[in-house]
């Protein structure tokens, strides 16, 4: 069954880490500032309305009074009348019938808005807000009762506008303050809210890294608490399952080791007995000779199998010591060839190769590979030494029938026999042992094969620190 990808995006890198936190902060800040902004704008508008209305009411009352006062003013006295306004900061303009105009301040000489003039001519009290010489004024205007003179009063509104500007600034500053506080509070809140998520991803990473006893702090009464409890349950189940699996594996390994060990005592007797019998075969009566020869051969086979089982269970137990010596690989190959009498079947090629490694294991691996090649091809085995970067390589090539591609990936598996008809004497553990030994030395064995030119097994081992070697 195909595994379902957990995230459609696949890789973790695609997701912006912490983006959820950022979004939470942004949302929090938006809500806080929009409401604070709306509140500020509304209160400003209300205050402004109230202030301007107040100013208008007061000015209108004053204007009515002043219009009444102006009924007695003649053109000649008008100058003094209007100038009296200047002391209050108010400009005043009186326009007598015929267009004669008296201004409280000839320098300023405020312009009279046409719309307002229309109102006044119709006998109404009018007002208009306008700037005179760059300052804000409320202009109130009306017809002086009992005459055709018009009075225009320019009440200053600078202080109102200044107050409103101050209020505006204060509100804007407060709004900015709210924005900052909201950002800070939002950050803290978001971090605190999302911290269980961060803890959970860290815990998941720890579990993935093999620390199966990692748990989340549980006990919070919220959704995260429930989540943590579920996570911990999953981790418990996982840990129990893996513990059970490794216990089972350890049991199996121990069983193999025990079986091999228990076989040893009777096998020792058998080997000694066969060893004695083999010197007596020629003295045996004919009908017994062949069976005895077979017994001797089978005891040898059994011995090989038990030896190899012991060896592989030691390798599995991971308790094998590794020596570090300078090893002349070509010398090892030459020694093992002559010890086994393969001189006319195996040739050595390539340059000298010196490694810092365990000589016994290298010998074990090469004896195995060469033995395997000799067994499968009979002759024309070539052992070639060389280097490949920081590694030494030994190729063992045979001119045998090769290994069919479907068997190639399995040749290092235990008890795997590519061709039962061709299996020969091997226990089926030889290549597996060679492979485990190579791995123990930090190297590997690879194989390539074609059915015409035969197989090449390549042992690759690290060169190791040359010359300077540690030992007892």
């Amino acid at each position: 069954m195909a595994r379902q990808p957990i995230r459609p995006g696949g890789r973790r890198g695609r997701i912006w880490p912490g983006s959820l936190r950022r979004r939470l902060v942004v949302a929090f800040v938006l809500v806080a500032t929009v409401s604070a902004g709306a509140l500020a704008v509304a209160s400003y508008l209300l205050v402004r309305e109230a202030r301007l209305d107040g100013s208008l009411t007061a000015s209108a009352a004053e204007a009515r009074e002043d219009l009444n006062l102006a009924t007695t003013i003649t053109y000649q006295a008008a100058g003094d009348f209007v100038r009296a306004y200047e002391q209050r900061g108010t400009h005043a303009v009186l326009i007598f019938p015929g267009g004669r105009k008296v201004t409280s301040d000839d320098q300023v000489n405020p312009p009279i808005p046409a719309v307002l003039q229309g109102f006044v001519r119709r006998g109404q009290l009018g007002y208009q807000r306008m700037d005179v010489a760059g300052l804000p004024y409320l202009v109130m205007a009306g017809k002086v009762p009992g005459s055709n003179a018009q009075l225009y009063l320019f009440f200053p509104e600078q202080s109102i506008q200044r107050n409103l500007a101050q209020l505006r600034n204060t509100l804007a500053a407060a709004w900015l303050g709210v924005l900052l506080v909201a950002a800070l509070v939002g950050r803290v809140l978001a971090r605190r809210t999302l911290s269980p998520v961060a803890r959970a991803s860290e815990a998941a990473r720890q579990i993935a890294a093999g620390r199966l006893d990692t748990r989340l702090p549980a006990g919070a009464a919220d959704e995260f608490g429930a989540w943590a409890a579920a996570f911990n349950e999953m981790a418990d189940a996982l840990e129990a399952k893996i513990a059970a699996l490794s216990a089972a594996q350890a049991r199996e390994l121990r069983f193999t080791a025990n079986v091999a060990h228990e076989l040893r005592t009777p096998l020792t007797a058998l080997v000694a007995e066969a060893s004695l019998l083999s010197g007596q075969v020629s003295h045996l009566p004919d009908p017994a000779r062949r069976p005895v020869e077979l017994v001797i051969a089978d005891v040898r086979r059994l011995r090989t199998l038990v030896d190899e089982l012991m060896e592989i269970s030691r390798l599995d137990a991971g308790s094998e010591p590794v020596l570090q010596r300078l090893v002349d690989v070509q010398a090892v190959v030459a020694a093992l060839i002559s010890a086994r009498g393969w001189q006319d079947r195996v040739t050595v090629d390539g340059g000298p190769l010196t490694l810092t490694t365990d000589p016994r294991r290298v010998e074990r691996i090469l004896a195995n590979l060469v033995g395997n090649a000799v067994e499968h091809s009979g002759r024309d085995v070539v052992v070639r030494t060389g280097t490949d970067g920081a590694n030494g390589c030994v190729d063992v090539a045979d001119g045998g029938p090769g290994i069919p591609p479907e068997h190639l990936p399995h040749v290092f598996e235990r008890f795997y026999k590519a061709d039962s008809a061709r299996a020969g004497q091997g226990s089926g553990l030889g290549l597996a042992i060679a492979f485990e030994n190579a791995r123990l030395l930090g190297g590997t064995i690879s194989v390539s094969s074609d059915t015409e030119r035969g197989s090449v097994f390549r042992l690759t081992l690290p060169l190791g620190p040359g010359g300077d070697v540690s030992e007892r």
Partner: protein
Amino acid sequence: MDERLLLVEDDASIREIVAIGLKAAGFRVATAVDGREGLARFRADGFDAVILDVMLPSLDGYEVCREIRKFSRVPIVMLTARTDLIDVVVGLESGADDYVKKPFELPELVARLRAMLRRAAAPAEAEPIVAGQLEIDPAGFAVRKDGIELALTATEFRLLLELARRPGQVFTRELLLQRVWDYEYLGDTHLVDVAIGRLRAKVEDDPSHPALIKTIRGVGYRLDRA
């Protein structure tokens, strides 16, 4: 021939067939079924060599070996069923000269015994060698340090003699295996390392900082004439 061997082995089949094999090879063989009996028999009769199983009831092979070493330098070969390196090393450190892994071919055991017995026989040469505070007397099979005789086993003696004959020369482990143990290259150099360790414990003033027998890293050992 006619050397007398003591075989201590608890498994009846192995005991019987090995005894038969050794007798066929020309040895005189006595057997014991456990550690206590083996030790008692050795004390009572004395033997030319001892073959000692490691896993024995009542007193294990290491113990028997240590007991024998307290009063005898007789060649001892251990039969070890456990091939873990630690067992081999413990066996050698308890004073065994050699070990054979179970299962073994009889000719292999016989060859090892003969090599050990050859070693135990005094070398032909007679000239004493002086190395530092040591005086090695091949004829008398004795080593004296500042005039006091040291209790070396036959293997340790041969090892010291081999190194002392050519002071300053580096011996590879393989060469020492060949010269002292009479083995062709077997790759099993623990024998050499452990024997060197035991020898140092007896001849060096400070065995952890040897002044006489030096380790040449990655190569082997050398005796410095102090």
